[in-house]
Structure formats: structure tokens, C-alpha cells
């Protein structure tokens, strides 16, 4: 049983482990997928915004395509006014643009709105957008702190060309906080920390961050990956808090986006899942640790008890009956198998036959044990030739053995002489044996002796009967005469049993009696209120060929 439980628990633990692993992994994968999707979505939104700004700035740039190329960063007055009007329009009409500037094609400042902090003619060709415009236009710049207002800004730079495609200059739109507003809004909306960095890994905007400082995440492995154009997700920790991060590049800008969610938030389904799985496993473990031993224990105890009962029951019956002795034994199922009836039959020392039927009042192991004891005791008496004459010796056995004042026993025993002509019998509080004669059925109800265990009452009186040809003798317990032939009918009683001793022709018939009792016993045992024992012998049991011949027509050999 230990092995069964142990094996079961090992299987259970492994099963739980794997279920947890599989389901947790599934949940984590799904949660990570969500974070990765958030990063990709943010990157896309950032890209859309920058493209739109680029388009708008480009449309203003196209208005400048008929300007003359600036000389020494200056324009003729009329063109200067037109340029100033265009820059003012760009700054004031486009949401988020805080200033607009124009440089010549070599990066020297020509004009700005509002009026520039830097002097006209300042060389801005060292700025990243100047180099970047060689690759694409519009170009979204890195974040930097503006010289004048000391604010973190990004610049959308667009080449300005004349209708023939010759470069005229560069139009610059400066924005502050657009990206920061986006990351803050996204963070509060979806509970996700979004960080947008420029092409160098510097934060342009990050949920809840200081908008006016330049902070570099260039060393962050996720930022590195995103800047390299890769996207994905990763478990990690930020400031000691476990997080799930997604990263994605912002296509067409060189920027990168990180989305970070606390692990507790991303995996909030995991604890619930774990609790569910563990609860189920705990239940299964409970079943194994408590219920299985209980059931197995009960089962084995019941089996043991049945084994003991069967052993007792066997001891109530002789291991072997002499040939010619027919017996029926049924323990009442209402009494839970173990009965107190006992029977025996054995040759006497002089060659006759001794028969016993007894009944310990009560039921269960105590009654069965006393019954087995009495049978063994009587067998000793019978094998010494005093089975009928010294029943008083069994009184001591009952008084000595029983542990319950209520227990007592009755028995009937008989001896057939070796020549089959004489019957001696004794009754100890027992129902009368039936003697079937050729033309009569007789109840041997006298002389009577008291039951065993009523206090010493001395030797029981002995009855003697001459046996004619064709006799039969039936001994039984009260379970038979207290039985009902059908559930509705009266108890059988001694008279009823005597009637069963006659065949259909009305003549005494041992075979008929045996068959009728067997039918009763073979009927549903639950109909029996009490145990039932029945033993019948006829003249054929004695090895006298003459006697056998005389009774052959009615003997039980045919039954």
C-alpha cells in the first residue's frame, strides 16, 4: 500500500509539475506576446506621427521651391519676408511645432521663427540631421537640448529644392514633448511603460520620465537590439522590480521603442492559474494520502475479517462427512455470514455412526468460536464412544469458554448401532430429531435434557429406539423450523417439517424431505432469519447389504 501511495504521489507531483510548467509557460508566452505587441504598436504609432509631421513640413518646403539660393546666408528682402512668413505659418499652424528654421544647403542658419537665439549664418552642419538628410528626407533628428530655451527637442529636417531639383536649403521644424506626451498618454491608458529613444539610444520620451533631460539608454541590451532593427520580448528587472519588456524599432526613423510591464501585472493570471492547479493537485494528494489508505485499509480489514469468519465457519463443519450422510448448511445473510450452528458425523469406535447438530444462540465470532469448540469437544466424546451419554461434560465447556452470560447452546446427537438396528439419542434443549419410519414420521421429543450453559444440570436422559427396515433420521437446528416457506407464510414449525417428511403419496420419504429442505435453503438466503443446519441419514449409511437392499427404493441415493 505504501508503494501504491508513494507511486501515486510521485506521479501526482510530476503531473502537477508538468501541468504547472506547461500552463504557466502558455500564460507567460501569451503575456509576453501582449507586451511585444504593445511595443510594436507603439513603434508604429510613433512612426505614423513622424511621417505625418515629415509630410506637413515637406509641404511647407515645397512652398519655398521658388526661393533663390541664399548667398552668405542672406536673401533679398522680398524673399526674406516670404521666408519669414512661411516659417511663421509652419510654427503657428502645425500642432506641436515650437519653432521653424531655414538654413542654406550647407547648413548655415538663414532665418527662424521665432527669431533665432543663434546668430544668422551660424553653421549647423555639425548637427546629426545635416548628415542624416544625405540618406533620407524628411529626417527625424536625435533629441538634444535647445540652445535658447534649454528644452529637449527633436527636429524634422526636410531638403528644399528648386523645381529642377537643385538644393536651395533645409527646412527645420522643432518639436518638444510630442513624444513625451505620447508615452505618458499611452502609459496611463494601458498601464504600460513606453520608452521611445532616438537613433543613439537617448530617451525622447518615456512614460513618467523627466521630459527635459537627456538620458541615454544606449547601454540597454534591449535598446541595442531594437536599434539594430530587431524586435522581441524579454523577462528582466528594472530597479529590482521584475518586468516583462517588449522592444521594437521605429521603421523609417532609426528610433526605438521599449514597452515595459511589471511581471506581477503581465503575469497576473499566473498566480491564479497556479492556485487552481495546486488546489486540484492538493485535492488529488488528499485523496491519495487519506482516502486511499482508508479504503485500502477498510478493504483489507474487511477481507481479513471475512477470512477469520470463513475459518471459523469451516471449523463449525467437519472437514469430511462419512459417505451416506447428507447435510445442508446455510449461514443467514442477515446475520452477516458467521453463524453459530454446527454439525458433525463420525464413525463410533465399535463401527456405528455418531451424528451431531448444535446451535450456539447468538451469532458472530464469539458464537462461532464456541460452536467450533463444542463440535471439537463432542467429537472427542463420540470417538471415545460416549457422544450421547456424556453431554454433561460439554456443560463445563460452555461455562468455561463463553465470555457472555447470554450465550448458551443446544444440541441433538444420535448414535446408530453397528448393525443399524438401534438408535440412541440425547437432546440438550434442542428441537426434536425426526425419525422417518416406513409408515410414520415421528418427532423424538422425549426424553428431553436442558440446554448447555444453564448451569450444571447433570447428564441428559438418553432415548433408545429400535430401527425397522427403511428408517431415516433427520437432525436440524431451529433456523429450519423458524423459517418461512415463503415470506408471507407461517413459520414452518416441527409439525410443518414433519409434513415435509412425507412424499406426494403421503408416505414417509427421506429423499423428498432432503430435496424440500434444500429448496428452502437454496432460495434467497436473505429470507432466512437464522442459520440453518440439517443432517439426514438413512439405513444405507450402515454397511449392511440386507438393510441397503430393503430400503433402496426410497433411499436418498436417488435424490
Amino acid at each position, binding site marked *: 500500500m505504501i508503494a501504491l501511495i508513494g507511486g501515486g504521489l510521485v506521479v501526482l507531483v510530476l503531473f502537477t509539475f508538468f501541468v504547472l510548467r506547461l500552463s504557466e509557460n502558455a500564460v507567460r508566452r501569451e503575456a509576453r506576446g501582449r507586451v511585444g505587441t504593445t511595443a510594436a504598436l507603439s513603434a508604429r504609432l510613433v512612426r505614423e506621427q513622424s511621417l505625418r509631421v515629415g509630410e506637413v513640413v515637406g509641404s511647407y518646403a515645397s512652398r519655398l521651391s521658388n526661393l533663390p539660393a541664399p548667398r552668405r546666408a542672406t536673401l533679398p528682402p522680398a524673399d526674406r519676408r516670404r521666408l519669414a512668413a512661411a516659417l511663421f505659418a509652419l510654427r503657428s499652424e502645425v500642432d506641436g511645432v515650437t519653432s521653424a528654421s531655414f538654413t542654406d544647403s550647407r547648413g548655415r542658419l538663414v532665418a527662424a521663427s521665432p527669431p533665432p537665439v543663434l546668430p544668422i549664418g551660424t553653421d549647423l552642419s555639425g548637427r546629426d540631421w545635416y548628415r542624416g538628410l544625405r540618406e533620407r528626407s524628411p529626417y527625424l533628428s536625435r533629441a538634444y537640448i535647445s540652445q535658447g530655451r534649454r528644452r529637449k527637442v527633436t527636429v524634422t529636417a526636410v531638403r528644399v529644392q528648386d523645381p529642377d531639383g537643385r538644393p536651395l536649403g533645409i527646412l527645420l521644424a522643432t518639436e518638444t514633448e510630442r513624444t513625451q506626451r505620447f508615452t505618458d498618454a499611452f502609459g496611463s491608458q494601458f498601464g504600460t511603460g513606453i520608452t521611445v529613444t532616438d537613433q543613439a539610444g537617448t530617451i525622447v520620451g518615456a512614460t513618467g520620465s523627466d521630459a527635459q533631460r537627456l538620458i541615454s539608454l544606449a547601454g540597454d541590451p534591449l535598446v541595442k537590439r531594437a536599434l539594430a532593427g530587431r524586435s522581441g520580448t524579454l523577462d528582466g528587472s528594472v530597479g529590482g522590480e521584475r518586468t516583462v519588456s517588449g522592444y521594437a524599432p521605429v521603421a523609417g526613423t532609426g528610433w526605438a521603442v521599449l514597452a515595459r510591464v511589471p511581471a506581477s501585472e503581465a503575469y497576473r493570471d499566473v498566480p491564479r492559474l497556479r492556485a487552481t492547479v495546486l488546489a486540484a493537485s492538493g485535492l488529488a494528494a488528499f485523496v491519495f494520502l487519506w482516502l486511499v489508505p482508508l479504503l485500502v485499509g477498510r478493504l483489507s480489514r474487511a477481507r481479513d475479517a471475512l477470512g477469520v469468519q470463513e475459518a471459523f465457519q469451516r471449523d463449525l463443519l467437519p472437514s469430511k462427512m462419512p459417505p451416506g450422510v447428507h447435510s445442508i448448511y446455510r449461514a443467514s445473510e442477515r446475520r452477516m455470514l458467521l453463524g453459530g450452528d454446527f454439525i458433525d458425523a463420525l464413525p463410533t469406535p465399535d463401527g456405528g455412526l455418531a451424528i451431531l447438530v448444535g446451535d450456539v444462540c447468538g451469532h458472530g465470532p464469539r458464537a462461532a468460536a464456541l460452536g467450533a469448540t463444542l463440535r471439537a469437544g463432542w467429537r472427542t466424546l463420540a470417538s471415545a464412544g460416549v457422544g450421547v451419554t456424556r453431554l454433561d461434560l460439554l456443560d463445563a465447556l460452555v461455562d468455561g469458554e463463553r465470555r*457472555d452470560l447470554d450465550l448458551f447452546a443446544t444440541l441433538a446427537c444420535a448414535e446408530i448401532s453397528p448393525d443399524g438396528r438401534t438408535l440412541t439419542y440425547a437432546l440438550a434443549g434442542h428441537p426434536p430429531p425426526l425419525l422417518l419410519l416406513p409408515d410414520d414420521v415421528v418427532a423424538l421429543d422425549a426424553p428431553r435434557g436442558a440446554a448447555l450453559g444453564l448451569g450444571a444440570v447433570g447428564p441428559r436422559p438418553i432415548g433408545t429406539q429400535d430401527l425397522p427396515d427403511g428408517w431415516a433420521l433427520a437432525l436440524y437446528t431451529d433456523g429450519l423450523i423458524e423459517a418461512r416457506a415463503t415470506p408471507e407464510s407461517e413459520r414452518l414449525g416441527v409439525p410443518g417439517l414433519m409434513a415435509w417428511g412425507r412424499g406426494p403419496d403421503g408416505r414417509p420419504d427421506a429423499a423428498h424431505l432432503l430435496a424440500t429442505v434444500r429448496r428452502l435453503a437454496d432460495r434467497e438466503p436473505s429470507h432466512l432469519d437464522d442459520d440453518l443446519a440439517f443432517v439426514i441419514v438413512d439405513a444405507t449409511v450402515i454397511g449392511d447389504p440386507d438393510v441397503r437392499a430393503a430400503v433402496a427404493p426410497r433411499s436418498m441415493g436417488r435424490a
Partner: protein
Amino acid sequence: MSDPATDPITFDFALTEERTSGGTHVIAVSGEVDIFTAPDLKRTIAQAIEGGTRLLVIDLTLTRFLDSTALGVLIGAVKRLRPLDGRMAIVNTEPSTAKTFQITGLDRIFTIVDTREAALEAVGTG
């Protein structure tokens, strides 16, 4: 078959107890006393004896049937009373029960009478 009057298990078994002014405990039994109902009778008798009863009358006037378990209970009662100098009498008029007492030889051990008055007289109280 569920009619209690014909169900062999619950065959209107009942016990009624009464204590006479003379101190005799009378237990009247009705119905059938068998393997299933005998424990009730046994418990009732045991409680009476533990409660100090020394004079006991078991009235079987309304008892239709006693099986061997019930006989055992009556034998046990006599044996319990014997060392306490107690006495027990049984009232019985049912022929089959009388036959059972006869067969088992218990008629020689029990005091068996026809009426409750005779039983009370037999145990020594009026």
C-alpha cells in the same frame, strides 16, 4: 412488503416498562423478539438491573415469538440477578413460546406463570 405489520424485521416489537409500588420492575414485551429486537430487550433489562432492580417480571403476554437470541437474553438476566439475590418471573401464555421453553429446558430454570399478578407474587411482591 413495506407494511410494518408484515415486515418480519419491524414486526411491531415494543417494550413498556413499569415499576410497581412493591419495587418490582415489569417489562412488557410485545411482537417478536429476534436477532434484531433482542438487543433492545437486553439493554432495557441491563439498565433496570444497573438501576438497582432486583425483582424483575418479564411479561410476554403480547409476545408472539422468541428466537434463541431472546432466550439468551432471558438466561443472561437470570444469571445476572442470581449473585445479586434478585428474582425474575416470566409471564407467558403463548403456546409456541411455552414449547420453546420446554424444548430448551428453560422451563426448569425460569419461573413461568400465566398472569402478571402471579408473577408479582412469585417474585415476592403483591
